[in-house]
Structures are given as structure tokens and as C-alpha cells.
């Protein structure tokens, strides 16, 4: 690990930077925030402030309507200067929201930013106790008493700066990943793109047209794919998997497995002579089983990179040791059946995760009989059937007999908004793609009758509602509000009969269609789950990656330097994916432009005198921060690599010798908080001041 030398001297002996002689009592200022009516509507802030004034070491206590506002911050600065306070306690919202704000504020007034303690009397008090105002006030007072006790023990800390490698890794080569990589490359940063499939392009490359404008998907995507492959700042690692990621913001070390194509990428020119002679034909995954490909193949004509790949599972050579027709056909000697996987190690400063989605596949026992009836298909299959470069050349046919369907039905919300299968969320794109596909079918075959079975139509984007109206008015597509109950197949004609309640008519309808399209929802992709584990990313209840803040930090993750874009974060359409990719690129660029980033000093450190070298901390640390080193006075001692430490406190809590201390959460600080809580509780019940055992 090439971590920058941690500035041990500054951080592990904070008292050297402390601004007070140890004999002087700390002078604490308490600032109680109303947060409009968020806190003041429940907690009696005046009472809390009066109580806080009487706590030991408190010099001044004030109330503010909004402490985070300019006025509120001015007041803190004024109090620091006038009352010479050297510790600040802000009783307001969660430190996750405004701790950075107040740290900057007290730093402006000349205090060390880590001499701040935030007491959460909003999320942890007023919001959860909104029905018990009296008790909430009591609890807020207690919480502040504890906060003051901890603040008295706070120590000054210095933030660290670490250098940032001006290189980024983009995981996933769908439209979001492509856009993010292009933006970063155009800013001048080096970008590695890792894509698990033989070609970039993702799901968008499979689509026919895009809503609401009807642009051909591959026609607008292919230029971007080509631009990416030609950009000298971008290294494209297609047909590769991220295996391991180590490190922290600024210097991540990434191990990438380049799966072997059995074709030398530098020699293959994509002429396709090999595929012409290959005797093996298998279903093409890209066409979802409708089209076929050879065992040596490119998934689709516009593939980038246009390099052939041998499918080891189906290639005759790997089964029998014979054939090698492709080798004979190749005029460039590009094919080598003895090639092996390659491991590439790269070092990057930031990572953008754009691992996309998987389309829901209707379960085997579902009522819609997707597995059983040929003429029940999913929307992604329909996209391939409508696509000009698809297996049918863009002619919509029924899979059962190849005839043009006269009547087509769409069933919405398959795999979304369904608590039974655990997908409670709306997939956001199904309404519009069904409407768009209905329009395309009508344009191909104007006489087709189309019905859309829906629950609610969500046409919320720019131009969506207009398309929805057009499809009703100009194209006479019928909308039936109701979830189909039963599909049955006519054994002769293979037509599908749909039984459903037309809820607006309050009647049960039974109608026959030639083709039924299930508008399937979006799921977190299998690859996302794997990458999520490697990068320790958190997920929302829906299984997609969780952003750091749903409103204010939509592309950040809880891990510094790792950003998310596209459907990996949640279902979204192409414009939203692009917008998020651009946002992720700009967020990732910020630390790379600065070439450095400030890292919190709230890390753990080891007291060598107490450490016995048991290495328990090494086993427990989720970030691999502790290492065993030769102690200065001999013996094996633990040492925490600060750049890797996230300050979670696991090691400190588990150390049998109490040799590990987490800064800002030292035993002394935590026990002083406990004491403040417990001692008051005892005296209130009329008992003697209790001796709180702190061991």
C-alpha cells in the first residue's frame, strides 16, 4: 500500500495542538436551534436553554430560529469572541447534515473545528417524540447535558490531506458509464472503463427507439461508443470484471480480471471471416434468444470494441479438441485457443459505479404464463423484435407462427409495484416504453389493434404527457384500467385470451389478442450486487445502491470517492441516466482537479505500551486498517494505517487491552457523557450522587 505517510505527530498527540493549558476549565457555549418549528414545535427550547445555562463549564447559552443560517452562525462567532468560549455545543439536527457547516463556522472564529459537539435534538428527540412534548423537553435537556460533558473533554485535531490520483475508474459500460467516462476524459483525466460484456452499450443498445421523441436508440448511442473507444484518455477494458478494490479516496488499487476472448484484441480487425466458417449456432443473448449467433461472435454489428469473442461453453474445440476452422479462416492470426485470463492492476483516485439493471423475468408460476405461452413476451424481447438490426429486421411477428399480430396487448406493472414478489417500487420507465412501443407498432402496421392494461399511467417527464395524449387521440390505442387476472391460450390459433376487470366500467372483460407484451420492471443487476460487496456500498430497501443523501447528494455514496450513476441507483430513463452520469463525473472531477482531499482525523490509534499484539483488531477491521509492526520498544504491536481507517470504532471497542483509542470517541469522552446522563437520573429520584463505574 502506497499510502501517504500519516501525520502521526499532529494527530496522535492532540494535546500538543490544544489551545488551553490543562489546568484551565473549558468555557463552553451552547446553541439551541428551533429549526423553525421542527424542534421548537415539540421541545420547549427556552426551558432547555435556561437549563443549559446552569450546566458546569457553560458560559453562554443561546437560542436561534435557524442556527445554520447566516444570523445563527454569526451569533456563534460573536459568542466565541465576546465570551472567549473554546468549546461549542450545537443542539440541532443530525451531525450528518450540518456538522461540516458548524465546523467551518467555528474555524472562522479561530477555534479548532473539532472542538465542536453536535447534539441531535431533532431526529433523536422532537421528531420521534412529537406526541410527548414535556418528556421531549426533558430528553433534549438530558442530551445537551451529556453533550456538554463530552465537549469539556474534546481535544483539538488536525484534518489530514491526502493526494488524489487524477485517474478515474468507471464500472459498467452502459449509457451512464459511457457518458461519465467521456465527460471525465474530456476534462483531461485518464479513465479506465471496465465492462463485463464483450461490447459496451449496455441495455440501451438493445432498445429500438427512445421515448418520447422516437430517436433510434443505437443511432444516438453508437457515436458515443465510438467516441469513447477513440478517446486517448480512456482505456477500455471490455469483457473484464473488477475483482478487488483496496484503498481509499485518492488512491484506490483495483484488480481487474480480463476474461480471455481467445482472440487477440490488438490483432482482430472485426472482419467476421471466423464467424462465417464457425459451424456452431447458438441463441444470441443480445437478442434474448430470438436470433442466433456463432460460437465466435460479436453480440451486435455496432459493437465496441469490434473484436470477436469465443464462447468457450459452445466452441467445438473446447469440447472435442478439434475444429479450429476459425483459426484457419483468420487472415491475421488473431485467434488463440490457449489464451488465458489476465489480471490488470490499476490505481485510480475516484470510482464511478454505473452497473445498471436487469430486466425482471416473470416467474415460472406466474399467472401471465410467460414460460408456457409462445405469444407472451417481455418488453425487452419486443424491443429486439421491433429493432431494425434485430433478428426479424424490425418486422413484428408472433413467435408462435411468424405471422404479423393483428391485436396486441400490453400488461403494465409486471414485476413492479408488487408486494407479493417484494418489488414495491415503480420502475418508472414501463408506462412510457409501452406507449412508445404501441406507437411504433401502429406506425409499422396501422391496422393493429392495441390495448394497454394499466393501473396508473405515469407520464411525468418532459413531453411524456403529450405523447400519452397523442397515442390515445391519433393512434387510438385503448387503455384498460385493470390488472389482468388470467391469461389462457387458444390451442388452435395460439391467441391469448385475457380476463380482466375494467375497473372504470366495473365489469369483467375477456378479450383475445395475438400477442401479449409484459411490461417488465427493472431490478438491481446481478453485477451490481457483486460490485456492491467489493466496494462495501449500501443499498436502499429496493436493492439499488443508496445515495449519500436522497436530495442533496444524489450521486455520492457513503464511501468517499465512490459515486453512482444510472440505473444502479434506481430505475430511470435515458435522459435521467445521462444527467446523473454527468453529475457523477463532475463530482468525481472535483477532488481530482484539486489533486488532494481533506480526510477527517477521526481515526483510531494504538497505545503501544498497552498493546499485546494479539491481532484481534486486524481480524475485525472491515477496512483492513490495522497492521502488525515492530514496536519502538520491541515486540509485535498493532499499528493503524490512518488513511484506511474510517473511525468506526470496532477495534477500539473490541481491544481486550483498551490499547486502541478512536479520536473524538475516546473512552473518557464517552464515559463522561454516560456519567452526565446517569448521575442526573439518580439525583432526580432523590438518591445520592451515584458513583458511576467507569471500567
Amino acid at each position, binding site marked *: 500500500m502506497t499510502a501517504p505517510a500519516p501525520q502521526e505527530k499532529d494527530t496522535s498527540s492532540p494535546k500538543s495542538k490544544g489551545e488551553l493549558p490543562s489546568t484551565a476549565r473549558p468555557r463552553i457555549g451552547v446553541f439551541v436551534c428551533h429549526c423553525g418549528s421542527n424542534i421548537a414545535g415539540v421541545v420547549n427550547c427556552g426551558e432547555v436553554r435556561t437549563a443549559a445555562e446552569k450546566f458546569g463549564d457553560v458560559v453562554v447559552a443561546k437560542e436561534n430560529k435557524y442556527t445554520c443560517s447566516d444570523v445563527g452562525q454569526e451569533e456563534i462567532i460573536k459568542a466565541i469572541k465576546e465570551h472567549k468560549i473554546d468549546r461549542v455545543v450545537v443542539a440541532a439536527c443530525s451531525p450528518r447534515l450540518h456538522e461540516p457547516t458548524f465546523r467551518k463556522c467555528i474555524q472562522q472564529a479561530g477555534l479548532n473545528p473539532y472542538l465542536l459537539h453536535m447534539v441531535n435534538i431533532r431526529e433523536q428527540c422532537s421528531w420521534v417524540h412529537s406526541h410527548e412534548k414535556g418528556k421531549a423537553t426533558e430528553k433534549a435537556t438530558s442530551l445537551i447535558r451529556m453533550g456538554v460533558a463530552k465537549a469539556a473533554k474534546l481535544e483539538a485535531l488536525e484534518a489530514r490531506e491526502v493526494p488524489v490520483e487524477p485517474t478515474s475508474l468507471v464500472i459498467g459500460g452502459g449509457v451512464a458509464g459511457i457518458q461519465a467516462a467521456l465527460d471525465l476524459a474530456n476534462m483531461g483525466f485518464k479513465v479506465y472503463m471496465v465492462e463485463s460484456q464483450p461490447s459496451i452499450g449496455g441495455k440501451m443498445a438493445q432498445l429500438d427507439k427512445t421515448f418520447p421523441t422516437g430517436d433510434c436508440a443505437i443511432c444516438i448511442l453508437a457515436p458515443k461508443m465510438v467516441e469513447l473507444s477513440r478517446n486517448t484518455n480512456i482505456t477500455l477494458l471490455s469483457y473484464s470484471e473488477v475483482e478487488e478494490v483496496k484503498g481509499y479516496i485518492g488512491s484506490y488499487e483495483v484488480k481487474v480480471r480480463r476474461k480471455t476472448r481467445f482472440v487477440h484484441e490488438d490483432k482482430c480487425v472485426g472482419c467476421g471471416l471466423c464467424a462465417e466458417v464457425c459451424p456452431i449456432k447458438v441463441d444470441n443473448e443480445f437478442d434474448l434468444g430470438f436470433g442466433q449467433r456463432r460460437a465466435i461472435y460479436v453480440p451486435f454489428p455496432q459493437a465496441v470494441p469490434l473484436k470477436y469473442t469465443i464462447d468457450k461453453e459452445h466452441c467445438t474445440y473446447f469440447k472435442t479438441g478439434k475444429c479450429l476452422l476459425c483459426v484457419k479462416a483468420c487472415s491475421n492470426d488473431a485467434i488463440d485457443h490457449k489464451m488465458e485470463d489476465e489480471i490488470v492492476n490499476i490505481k485510480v483516485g475516484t470510482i464511478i459505479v454505473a452497473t445498471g439493471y436487469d430486466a425482471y423475468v416473470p416467474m415460472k408460476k406466474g*399467472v401471465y404464463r410467460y414460460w408456457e405461452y409462445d405469444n407472451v413476451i417481455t418488453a425487452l424481447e419486443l424491443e429486439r423484435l421491433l429493432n431494425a438490426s434485430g433478428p426479424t429486421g424490425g418486422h413484428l411477428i408472433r413467435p408462435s407462427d411468424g405471422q404479423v399480430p393483428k391485436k396486441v396487448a400490453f400488461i403494465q*406493472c409486471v414485476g413492479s409495484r408488487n408486494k407479493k414478489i417484494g418489488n414495491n417500487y415503480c420502475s418508472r420507465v414501463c408506462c412510457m416504453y409501452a406507449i412508445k412501443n404501441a406507437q411504433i407498432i401502429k406506425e409499422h402496421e396501422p391496422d393493429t389493434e392495441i390495448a394497454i392494461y394499466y393501473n396508473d399511467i405515469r407520464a411525468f417527464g418532459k413531453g411524456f404527457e403529450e405523447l400519452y395524449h397523442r397515442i390515445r387521440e391519433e393512434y387510438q390505442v385503448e387503455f384498460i384500467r385493470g390488472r389482468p*387476472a388470467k391469461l389462457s391460450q387458444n390451442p388452435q390459433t395460439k391467441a391469448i385470451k385475457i380476463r*380482466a376487470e375494467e*375497473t372504470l366500467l*366495473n365489469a369483467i372483460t375477456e378479450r383475445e389478442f395475438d400477442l401479449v407484451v409484459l411490461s417488465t420492471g427493472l431490478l438491481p443487476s446481478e453485477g451490481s450486487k457483486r460490485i456492491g460487496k467489493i466496494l462495501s456500498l449500501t443499498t436502499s430497501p429496493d436493492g439499488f445502491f443508496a445515495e449519500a443523501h436522497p436530495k442533496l447528494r444524489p450521486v455520492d455514496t457513503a464511501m468517499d470517492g465512490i459515486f453512482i450513476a444510472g440505473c444502479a441507483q434506481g430505475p430511470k430513463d435515458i435522459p435521467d441516466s445521462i444527467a446523473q452520469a454527468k453529475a457523477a463525473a463532475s463530482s468525481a472531477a472535483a477532488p481530482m482537479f484539486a489533486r488532494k482531499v481533506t480526510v477527517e482525523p477521526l481515526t483510531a490509534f494504538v497505545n503501544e505500551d498497552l498493546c499485546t499484539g494479539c491481532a484481534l483488531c486486524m481480524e475485525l477491521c472491515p477496512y483492513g486498517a490495522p497492521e502488525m509492526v515492530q514496536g519502538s520498544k520491541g515486540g509485535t504491536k498493532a499499528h493503524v494505517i490512518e488513511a484506511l481507517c474510517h473511525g468506526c470504532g470496532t477495534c477500539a471497542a473490541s481491544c481486550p487491552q483498551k490499547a486502541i483509542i478512536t479520536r473524538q470517541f475516546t473512552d473518557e469522552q464517552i464515559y463522561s457523557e454516560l456519567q452526565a446522563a446517569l448521575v442526573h437520573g439518580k439525583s432526580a429520584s432523590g438518591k445520592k450522587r451515584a458513583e458511576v463505574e467507569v471500567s
Partner: protein
Amino acid sequence: MGEVEKTFIGGLHEKLIEEKVIDESQLDPDFPKLIRKYGGKDVMTCLQCGNCTGVCPISLKIDYKTRNIIKCCQFGLKKYTLGTRWVCATCYRCYEHCPADLNPAEVMIALRHIAVREGIIPPFIKTAVTNLVKYGQSVKPDPEIDKIRKELGLGNIGVEHPEFGKVIREIGVLIRATKYDKLIGIQEEVKT
């Protein structure tokens, strides 16, 4: 639905539907809570997709279909909910298909509980319970049934079995102990 006859100026004579506005006096916002009390899941989760109606084997034969009843429950429109639910056979197909994970069949059972406590009891229920107490089965023994059973090659139901009287007495004790007879209003019929 009542009809009113109206003669317009000029002599045009039309039969019109009775004017009917659902006002707040007919709504009971606490009704969903009451349903929960009697074992139904929260009806407010229903999205009115109509899947339950579509799969319901009896839905074609009734006016107020499963989805309508759930909607009326959400509003607390008791008037429409407490009359029709006895046709539900609780086959649970609606539950099997419901994407909101609601259980309409159990809502129906809850509605029966509520209806009975409000004194809305269909006569056939009284008859069935009376039969149960008197004969140990909800259908009254009938020589016609025995004849059909014989034709089909089936034996007797077994009411002549010496132990059967004991079973009937046990049922009676249980029904009286749980005050079920009082709830249904059949104390007179089952007096011993």
C-alpha cells in the same frame, strides 16, 4: 336503485334514477380500523387494480365485486359493504394474486363479523346454525338426500350411530358457551 318518474315541460316523460350523492354522513373514516380489529389487513393498501375481481369465481354473479367492496371499506361506506359479502367462499384466490399483499378474503370475514354484530344476519345463516345445533350438520337430514346417496352407491351419513347424539350435544354446549347462539339470535330455536 330506485327510479323516479318525471314529466318535463312539453310533456316529455322519463324514468330517471333517484338522485344519489354520497355525502360525508354516510362515510365512516374509522371503518378500516374496525376491519383490522376483526382480522382483516389494512384495506388502505389497496390500489384498486381489479385483479381480485378478475380471479374471483363468484364475481360475475354479484353487483358489488371484490374491488368495489374494498373501495367502500376504504371510504367506510358501510351501507354497501355489509350486505353482499356472504357469497364469498374464502377460496383465497384474490389473496394469491393481490399485488398489494392485501387479503380480500379475510376482509370479507371481518365484514361478516361486523355485520353480525350490527344485526345484519342473512336468514340462511340462522337456518344453518340451527341445523348444526339440532342435527350436528348445517344441512337438515332429508330422505331425498339419502335416496341420492344410495343411487350413487354411498352409505348413510351416520346419524344413527350411537355416538352421534353425544357429538350433537357437544356442539350445542360449545355454541352456547361461546354465546354464538345469542350473537346470531337463535336462542329460541335451539332451546333444549
